[in-house]
């Protein structure tokens, strides 16, 4: 089944790459069908994981299902090893869902060269799914890198006026991080002779000297930090988001950003536990700095997409804080916050795309205000998304962030408690600052009386400054409902992650090792 989930979008990508140039409707239909099929295939994997206790009974640190283990590049000890467990499946489902919604969005805003566009989106999906399913380090790295190429083209070819520079910065910066990542992976191989993740997780760092663990974890840390992004390695994100087309931004925020934190939890923590314990405080400090800096920076932003890009840095700060505590609560919270961020920020970028396509600008100074009065339905969903993003309890964003703070108040034994306590308080204060900038956004753009913006050009009779129509509804509603559902009943995701995380923490991060 893993091969099906990976193979479908790959097949679709190749087919679409060969699609005749002039076609418009057919590639979009085909793309949507493939994305829907992939999502269905991913959902089929779900029942097999129910009741997964993550191998806590079997004593295995990593207990994948739907495993595929084929010889591939035997010369360098690389196998085609795929598998799914409770940690990766929520992200796989999120990826498949956002890709499908992105494909549907092609009916809202028709891209030119749709066949090429859809092909690139599917390639991105392949890379993301491959990252989440890979159980071999080289395979992981390859999939990790594959995502770069379609994103670069999506931004530079279909993006805004400053797209070329933004895409280049994004590509080179992430590539530099990946170079560090590769160094780390090579260190691991050099010490253990294996690229297999199941085996390496089982070892839990045995056989790797502390010095090498530190160095390798540091290298992996840099690579994943760029991708997450972790402050201060985040400055590629705002320009990339600002210039990317709507679907590009959604997938960047909802899919690509997840890969960094996933890599930390999947690879860096279990394989290099001593390195993790040593560097966790630094991770925590940088994460919380990111939360505060991002919130303050958001307050001064006047461009919509840039503001949401910075808010992503803040959210990922909470995720990374949760990871840095090295406890079951923290990692569960991080994974939950990860999924919530994907849903909420994905929704936000779709909405901002809707605003930009109507008013042809993302600048707050030019947009005017009173959007809720002008376009009630769009305004309502915007308010919902902003409120969800600022972490209102009852919606998805709250649980992960609150429990990340809880985990920071009770970090793993061996980590500096007072430092983490201070960081917890600062992170909680960051939540107030998050409310500050989102309310500022709402006040400037959405609530209040109608003020027509300076940059708003009067549209002709076929004006698209109409309220949300059906196709946009189809894109927004699933995200809206999932945000609410996850907020009211987080066990939906936590039921999946709890088992594997317990196995991870118990088998690998126990201080007695």
């Amino acid at each position, binding site marked *: 089944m893993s091969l099906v989930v990976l193979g479908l979008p790959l097949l679709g990508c190749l087919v679409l790459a060969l699609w005749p140039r002039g076609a418009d409707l057919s590639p979009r239909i085909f793309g949507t069908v493939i994305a829907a099929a992939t999502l269905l295939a991913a959902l089929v994997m779900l029942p097999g994981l129910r009741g997964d206790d993550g191998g806590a009974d079997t004593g295995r640190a990593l207990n994948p299902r739907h495993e595929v283990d084929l010889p591939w590049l035997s010369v360098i000890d690389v196998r085609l090893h795929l598998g799914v467990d409770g940690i990766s499946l929520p992200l796989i489902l999120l990826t498949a869902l956002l890709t499908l919604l992105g494909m549907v969005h092609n009916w809202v805003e028709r891209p030119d060269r749709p066949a090429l566009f859809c092909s690139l989106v599917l390639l991105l999906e392949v890379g993301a799914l491959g990252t989440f399913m890979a159980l071999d380090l080289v395979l992981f790295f390859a999939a990790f890198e594959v995502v770069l190429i379609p994103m670069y083209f999506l931004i530079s070819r279909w993006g805004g006026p400053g797209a070329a520079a933004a895409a280049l910065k994004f590509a080179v910066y992430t590539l530099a991080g990946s170079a560090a990542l590769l160094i780390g992976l090579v260190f691991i191989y050099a010490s253990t002779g294996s690229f297999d993740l199941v085996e390496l997780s089982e070892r839990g760092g045995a056989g790797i000297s502390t010095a090498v663990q530190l160095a390798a974890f540091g290298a992996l840390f840099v690579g994943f930090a760029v991708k997450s992004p972790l402050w201060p390695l985040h400055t590629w994100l705002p320009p990339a988001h600002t210039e990317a087309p709507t679907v590009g931004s959604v997938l960047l925020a909802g899919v690509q950003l997840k890969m960094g934190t996933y890599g930390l939890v999947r690879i860096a923590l279990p394989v290099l536990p001593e390195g993790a314990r040593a560097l966790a405080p630094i991770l925590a400090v940088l994460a919380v700095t990111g939360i505060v800096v991002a919130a303050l920076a958001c307050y001064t932003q006047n461009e919509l997409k840039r503001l949401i890009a910075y808010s992503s840095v803040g959210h990922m700060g909470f995720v990374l804080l949760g990871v840095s505590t090295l406890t079951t609560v923290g990692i569960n919270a991080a994974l939950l916050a990860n999924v919530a961020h994907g849903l909420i920020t994905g929704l936000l970028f779709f909405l901002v795309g809707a605003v930009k396509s109507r008013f042809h600008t993302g600048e707050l100074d030019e947009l005017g205000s009173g959007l809720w009065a002008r376009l009630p339905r769009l305004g309502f969903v915007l308010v919902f998304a902003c409120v969800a993003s600022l972490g209102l309890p009852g919606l998805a964003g709250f649980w992960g962030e609150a429990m990340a703070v809880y985990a920071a*108040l009770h970090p793993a034994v061996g980590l500096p408690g007072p430092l983490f306590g201070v960081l917890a308080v600062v992170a909680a204060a960051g939540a107030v600052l998050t409310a500050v900038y989102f309310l500022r956004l709402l006040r400037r753009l959405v609530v209040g009386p109608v003020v027509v913006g300076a940059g708003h050009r009067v549209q002709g009779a076929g004006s698209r400054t109409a309220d949300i129509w059906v196709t946009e509804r189809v894109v927004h509603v699933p995200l809206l409902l999932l945000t609410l559902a996850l907020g009211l009943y987080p066990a939906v995701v936590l039921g999946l992650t709890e088992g594997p995380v317990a196995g991870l923490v118990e088998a690998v991060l126990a201080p007695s090792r």
Partner: protein
Amino acid sequence: MTTLATGAAVGVVVIPALAAGLGVAPAIRQRVGGARAVAVVGAVLTMLAAVAVFGTADNVAQETRLLLAPFGDIDITTGVLIDGLAGVLVLVVAVVGLCVQLFSVGYLHSDQRYPTYAAQVSLFTAAMMLVVVSGDLLALLVGWEVMGLCSYLLIGHYRDLPEAPGAAVKAFLVTRVGDIGFLLGVLLLGGAAGSFRISDVVAAVGSIDSGTLTLATLLLLLGVAGKSAQFPLHTWLPDAMAGPTPISALIHAATMVAAGVFLVMRLYPVFVAAPTTLTVLAVSAAITMLLGALCALAQDDLKRVLAWSTISQLGYMTGALAAGGYVQGGFHLVTHAAFKALLFLAAGVVLHQVGTVLMSQLGGLRRSMPLTFAVTAIGLLAMVGVLPLSGGFSKDAAVASVWAAVRGESSVLPSAPVATVLLISMLATVLLTAAYATRLLLRTFFGEPPPGGFHGNRQEIADPEPLMRWPLVVLTVPTVALGATIGWFPSYLGGALPPAESVVGFGPGPLPGSLGPHLSEALLASALIVVGAGATYLVWRAQPDRDPARILGRAATALRRGLYLDEVQDALVVRPTRRLATVVSAVDEIGVDGLVDGAADATAAASRGLSQAHPRLPNLAVTSLIVTTTALVTILVVLS
């Protein structure tokens, strides 16, 4: 727990939530009649469920639980916890909610956005009910914050009112600051107790070290201060009057602001085990009630008088609780909900009929609006604390509890100096309350209107239509008659949740929970009321068309501006944060990003330099590639 009790408790949360969801459905939202029906029917059904909860609750806590979020080392469950406290409050919220929904139908008759408004009010009701019946602290927090959201949305309801958006943001942010303290306190308590369930936390009180307990309760107190508008987080409440007046009756008088007081009562054993926190609460209460009463004395806006008055009255409740008067504080919570909601709805009537609530532009309304005058007078008498109205009993009970603490009878507030300060503050507040209440009554309903007249023609000003009249009448009943329940109330309310046996000497409450008036307190209070009211009346009568507060001289301006505490908050918190944001943003964009761009520029420059040194190398790109690759490979080889 019986199925009926559980079902009713769940219903009391779910029914208004459904009404809210239904109210925003496109089919309903477009038809005002449909929206009204949904809102009112929802409120009626909620009322029925509330009565069921009230009827099935007894003073033994009952509970059910459902796993919501397994996080590994700690689980989050949700469930309902019904005891006397929950039973009483559920009924209060349902009654006030129903009155407000009915009143709003008339008040917002011509408002286009009524459907959204009604849905938000329903959602708010659901959230408050969740706070009241929740058996789990984090689920309580969900309701707590959703109330804050609804408050924000509703205060900003009048889109074209310039002060509305700012007031809404201020309300949300000030309470959010408090809520962060609340969250941290909950997380600390939950972590120490191993569970977020209220009953588990209370049971674990004996085993948590006092340092953690004190810190956690102080943090919780931040949340209480924010939601219940206690000093220093009170600044949002007067500005919140920019919202529609029925909202002020529901949210800012009877329910949301009561949530903080409810929390102290719900977790009372935890607070009792942290005497430092209760001392802090006592001091804060003393400051708050005096501040509120003084500022109420100088306001021109009728609604603002009531807002400051609410701040002051909440101080009574927290003061009584700090002294150990669990039952007394609870009783004042209930009576205040009745008379304050009544007063706010009456203010709404004045605004609706006359077009202004500025007392300098009102006068003589008792002739044209006799019913409104009557209910306002009754409400004010209750607020001032005249026996035998309900407010009289509750105020006397609060004063008595503090007096008992002064006499050293309270194990909870052993410090006589603090208790004395609290008592003096309370007695002064009684006097001031009488003063500003009299001023309000005289300036609005007596005397003559100003020469310019009202906005409308005097003939049009009359008592309101039935839909707005009946809620007033209904609320008058408990305002007058709740005093009859003083025998039954303490036994229904029961004691606070009992902690583990290891906590010694904890009976129904640190003080005996009797509400009967004490003669000495009643006499003293009556004397103070007479002095306060009489002085105001005499000053007014000398010059009926001028503000009695003028005798305060320049202090009046300071009081009207809330002792400039808004400006202090702005200078200490708001402006520094804005400046910090600008600095941090610049550092991030120019500094951090500059490093990145600088690295890129440096690489390019180095490559250019190298390619000039080797003229045969074709171009910049190739040279950069070779240099970087060589460097990487070298590192790999050396280190592996």
